[in-house]
């Protein structure tokens, strides 16, 4: 006797969206910190922001936008029964996440070499507004980077489920929700990039 397994896709997706709203409010708090201190230290924010390398920020923007495209297309591919294409696109997303983190590694390394890191002696010498800018920069991009790593792990886990067939053309909500998480990571970066890297270049 085959049992009917109840699948509530609307509920599953709505639950994921509710989780994403809490993420938006979490990062919203960090953007409020940015906005309040930008209002208090406009000149210091400009001089600190101009020390960030727009090539790292811009390059990572392209990487994340493209990986978001991969994830979006992978859902269409899975539902059209193109399992191999779907797996390839998800592998591309994980590679994108790795490229993003490697960029971040070089970017942070360069900053740390210049003595710019939380609690460094240099941070006490520069203007208070500048050290605040760099502190919020490390917290925001660090928390975002953590989300990139978690997103890549979720996508890897989803790939395993696609491989063993438990996520398939008829039952794809796990991929959909993993994709929603990945797009949120992209969304947050869409705001981080202009606010931190392009502030009056």
């Amino acid at each position: 006797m085959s049992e009917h397994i109840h699948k509530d896709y609307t509920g599953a997706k709505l639950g994921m969206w509710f989780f994403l709203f809490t993420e938006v409010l979490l990062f919203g708090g960090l953007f409020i910190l940015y906005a309040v201190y930008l209002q208090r230290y406009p000149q210091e924010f400009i001089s600190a922001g101009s020390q960030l390398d727009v090539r790292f920020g811009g390059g990572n923007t392209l990487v994340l936008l493209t990986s978001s495209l991969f994830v979006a297309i992978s859902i269409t591919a899975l539902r059209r029964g193109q399992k191999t294409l779907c797996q390839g696109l998800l592998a591309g997303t994980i590679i994108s996440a790795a490229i993003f983190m490697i960029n971040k590694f070089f970017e942070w390394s360069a900053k740390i070499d210049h003595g710019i890191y939380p609690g460094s002696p240099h941070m006490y010498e520069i203007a208070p507004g500048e050290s605040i800018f760099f502190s919020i920069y490390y917290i925001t991009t660090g928390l975002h980077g953590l989300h990139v790593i978690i997103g890549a792990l979720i996508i890897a886990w989803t790939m395993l489920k696609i491989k063993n067939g438990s996520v398939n053309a008829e039952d794809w909500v796990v991929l959909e929700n993993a994709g929603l998480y990945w797009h949120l990571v992209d969304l947050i970066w869409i705001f981080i990039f202009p606010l931190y890297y392009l502030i009056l270049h």
Partner: protein
Amino acid sequence: MSEEHEHIVSYKLFALIWGALLILTGVTVWVAQYNLGALNIWVALGIATLKSGLVVAFFMHMKYEQPVFKICLLAALAILAIFIGFTFLDVLYR
């Protein structure tokens, strides 16, 4: 089982959205070269909001979801706006 309102978005539409996102990224980098004073931050936020709208509507399929999803999204954004707005009422008029 899949529900009937589930919409499959074509590869072509996704590629077009991606192209639009790249163009908007180019625009935001280009505009940032000019000193527009306080306007810079509002242009940057405006373009970022437009890009987010494209990601949410198409990549995240919000355009094709039932009204309950859209209502919840609006409620969450309203809460975020109150969060930001009330903080600034305090910061600016203290």
